[in-house]
Structure formats: C-alpha cells, structure tokens
C-alpha cells in the first residue's frame, strides 16, 4: 500500500498525543504527579497540538477537505466516521479536564469524572483508528488480530515516554512513570513481534486461481496487464519499494522504538537532572522516529489482494 505521508504523520502524531493526554489524565487523577498548572499546560498543551496537527494533516490527503464535515454522518457503518466523531468529541472532556487542572488545581469530584471520560475517549479514538485498518479484509497484513493492539501500544508507549521526559524537566522523581514506559516498551515489543510473525507466516486466503475462477485449468499467472503504464490501483495498492528493505527497516525500527528508549530510560531516569532530562528526551525522540518508521512499514509492507490481477502470486 502506498504510504501517504499525511496519514503516517497523522497516525503517529495523534497517537502520541492521545497517549500523552491519557497518561497525564491518569497520573493526575491518581495523584501520581503534582497538579502544577505549568506542568498541566505543557503536557495537555503538547498533547492537544499533536492530536490537532495530526487531525488537520489527515485532511491534507483528501480530494475535498472542505467536505470533511460529512464524515461525521456515517458512524453506523464506517470506522473512519467513528474515528472522526470520537476525535472531535475528545476535545470536550479535554477542555474540562484542563480547566480542573489549570484553573481549579484539582482533579477531584466532577473534574475527576471528566478526566476518566477523557482517558476512555483517548483509548476509543486510537482503537477506532486501528479498526479502520483491521477491518479491511482486502489487506492481509492489516486484517490481523495484532493491528489494533499495535496501534494502542504505540500510542501509549510514545505518550509514556514523552510524559516521562516532561516530568523529568519539572524535576519530578516519578519511578511509576518510568515503570509505565518500560511496561509499554515490552508490551509493544511483544505485540509487534507477534504481528510480524503472523504476517510473515499466514498468507491471505485469496489466490490468482480464486481471483480469476480459472483454478480448474491449473496454476494461473498473469500474461499481459491491461495497460503498459501503471494505473491508479497499481500506484495506490501496488507500492513495493520497501519490501526489499523490510528486514533492515524492521531492525532499525526495533533499535529506535525499543532498544534505545529502554536503555536510556533504565539508565538515566533516576539520575541527576542534567543526565535525566536529555536522556529521557532522547528516549522519547528515538521512539517517535521508531514509530514513524513502523507506521511507514505498516503501509509499505501491506499487500492488497487486487494485486492478484496484476501479477501477485499470493495475497
């Protein structure tokens, strides 16, 4: 599948934003961090910038961005519509939680409820992003049980690492956040490993024989494509540049999203500020690069079943 940069930026940025907001709200409600207004403004503000920037960039690949409001109408059947509605609805508890944290200085009573609703909406939004991909039976690599957990894990992992870095900047010694980041790292590593093993070993059900109905004659292969030049379907679904480098990119991805962050988090988070701040910041930056590569691979490695009509031998 062709990896549109706007979609990759959207899913990684907004994923990190929802993860960051979720962890801030969670630790805020559980009194895990001081409810300092500046700390709240920076964590919730950065999260808001990430999700808003992501949402705006996702409209950049549309043919008619001015009609984007229409995407709020088909929540009954479309996960893309549900994602749009949930993403927009999240701003309500976000503003109310920010009010509690920044103005009232408390996340108790009704503001605690708003923060819990915010956590739920962050999870639901990222879940529906994953479901857009996971429900496409046409793309084996996306129609996988690990797709949605993958989206959720990467959002939480990125959010945890950024939250950790920001709290270090404020001089908060919070081993709980470091622990959350390390749990997130291992969970993501496990899910992603399982995902890659699954797509490498279990092919899609369709074959050139079933795609043409000619299986009774024997093995089917393409003799002539319909046109000499590539058409829309081939350009959009037949993207194959990355597959050649997939193993190498997976390794780079593993280093950047897992190995470097886990070493940096483990070694630096309990040190003095002059080590801990750059260390945890680098961990978050490295993971963000890793997630962007992972998301790019998620697209570039995915084969669309329609390519069986253009010479693909398996789906």
């Amino acid at each position, binding site marked *: 599948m062709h990896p549109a940069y706007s979609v990759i930026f959207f899913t990684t940025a907004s994923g990190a934003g929802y993860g960051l907001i979720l962890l801030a709200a969670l630790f805020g409600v559980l009194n895990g961090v001081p409810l300092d207004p500046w700390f709240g403004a920076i964590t919730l503000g950065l999260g808001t910038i990430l999700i808003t920037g992501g949402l705006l960039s996702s409209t950049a690949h549309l043919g008619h961005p001015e009609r984007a409001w*229409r995407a709020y109408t088909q929540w009954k*059947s479309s996960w893309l519509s549900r994602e749009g509605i949930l993403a927009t609805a999240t701003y309500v508890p976000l503003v109310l939680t920010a009010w509690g944290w920044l103005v009232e200085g408390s996340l108790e009573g009704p503001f605690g409820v708003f923060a819990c609703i915010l956590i739920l909406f962050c999870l639901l939004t990222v879940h529906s992003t994953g479901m857009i991909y996971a429900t496409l039976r*046409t793309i084996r690599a996306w129609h996988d049980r690990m797709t949605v957990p993958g989206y959720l894990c990467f959002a939480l992992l990125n959010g945890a690492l950024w939250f950790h870095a920001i709290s270090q900047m404020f001089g908060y010694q919070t081993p709980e956040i470091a622990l959350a980041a390390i749990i997130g790292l291992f969970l993501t590593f496990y899910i992603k490993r399982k995902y890659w093993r699954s797509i490498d070993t279990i092919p899609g059900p*369709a074959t050139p024989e079933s795609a043409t109905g*000619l299986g009774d*004659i*024997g093995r089917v292969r393409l003799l002539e494509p319909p046109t000499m030049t590539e058409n829309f379907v081939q350009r959009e679904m037949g993207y194959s540049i990355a597959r050649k480098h997939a193993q190498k990119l997976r390794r780079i991805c593993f280093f950047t999203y897992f190995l470097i962050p886990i070493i940096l988090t483990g070694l630096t988070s309990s040190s003095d500020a002059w080590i801990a701040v750059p260390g945890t910041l680098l961990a978050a930056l490295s993971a963000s690069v890793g997630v962007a590569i992972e998301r790019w691979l998620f697209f570039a490695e995915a084969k669309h079943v329609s390519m069986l009509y253009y010479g693909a031998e398996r789906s």
Partner: protein
Amino acid sequence: MTLLPPKGKKKLGLVIDLDTCVGCHACAVNCKEWNTGGHSAPLPDHDPYGADPNGVWFNRVHTFEAGEGTASRTVHFPRSCLHCEEAACVTVCPTGASYKREEDGIVLVNEDACIGCKLCSWACPYGAREYDTDAGVMKKCTLCIDRIYNETLPEEDRVPACVATCPASARHFGDLGDPNSDVSHLVEEREGKELMPELGYQPVNRYLPPRTRQKDQGASGVGAALTPVTDPDAEGAGRFLRWVDRVLSR
C-alpha cells in the same frame, strides 16, 4: 446511508464468458467512450498520446495463462465492478457518498458528497474503483445506469456499453436475482464462477470458465486431424484437382 440496504430481489449484473472473449478491449474502450459523457463524466485522460498515458477506466482487460504445457490456456479476462452484495466499499465510506441501490443492487458514488479519502478503493478486493485526481472524487462502473433505464434509447440499446459493443458476444447483462433470467440460465449451464468467494463480498457478476476441449490436441491447439472440407476421391474431382491434392499433401 452507507449501511447496506436490505437484500433486494433484483440483482442487475454482468455475466462474462471467458470462453469467447477474444481480448480485443472493445468493451473497455466503449465503456470509456460512453462514461466520459455519462453519469460520472468526465473521466480524466492525461497524456493520452504521450509516454505515460493515465486516466480513469471502469473496465480493464487482463490476460492470464492457466495450466501447464499443452493443457494450458490463454484467457482474456475483462474486470470491472462486480456490484457485490456485501459491498465493503459502501460500508467503509465515512460520508455516505458510496451507496448500493435497493431497487437493483447497483453500487454508485454520489460525487457531490465524496471527500476523496480513497478508503473505498482500499476496501475493494477487485481493484474496481479508480480515483479521479482532477475532480478529487472516486469513480466506478455505474453498470451504465444512464443507458439501461434510458427511454430515449431504442430498447435493444438499453444495456451497458461494454455489452452493447462486444463483438464476440462474450458479455451478458441481466437480473442475476431472477433464477429464470437468461443470465441465470447461462450461469447454471456453464457453472459460472464467483470471484474470490473466500473473502465473502458476494459479488453479483459471474465469469463463465473456458469450455473443456473436446479431444486431445497438439501444442498448437489445432485438432490432430482436420476433417477435409472436400473429399479428393469423390466423383467429379478431376485429374487436376487430384494432382493438386497430391502435391499439397507431400
């Protein structure tokens, strides 16, 4: 609404005979010709005479090889929208632009509501939808909705453009929901195939597989011995013709 309508009785669609299709691409060309002035007009046509011609086509003809050795077959394979009963291109649409008609099962795009997100083209296993970069909307086969119900056309022309033009009569149009229709009989007689049934989209269109050969033939595909058109020993064949026959038989 992009929820699928309740399943209707009428299922208009195409039956494509892979035995008689000669791969001439006339269906694809006439489709483009009609539809660039029809319901989804215009269809983009970039650099048509240049090095990289590009544009939207609703119908494309692939050629496959099936089987091995002397038993193998070259099969021309026209591919277009199959107007699925479980059309995921409809249900994934976030705006309601993509829809399936309850009255005849035709899947269409309302171009005024399409935001051009392309998700429907990702959801189609058959690669039937093509994006119009000029208009910023998705386009697809309309089953020539502007021909089949068009009362200004003579009745015999009220069929999709691809069907009307096929010189080999390899394309048939009709109601596949009616077990007594001509197309349904054809599917039954020739054991018409559903494409990729394992994905569960329940396409309406059917493909008739090539007929099995009647006798063992050589690699050329020509019968081992042709029945002579004329019998050289027959009465009335003169000495000259018999001599020609002998010379040519050497």
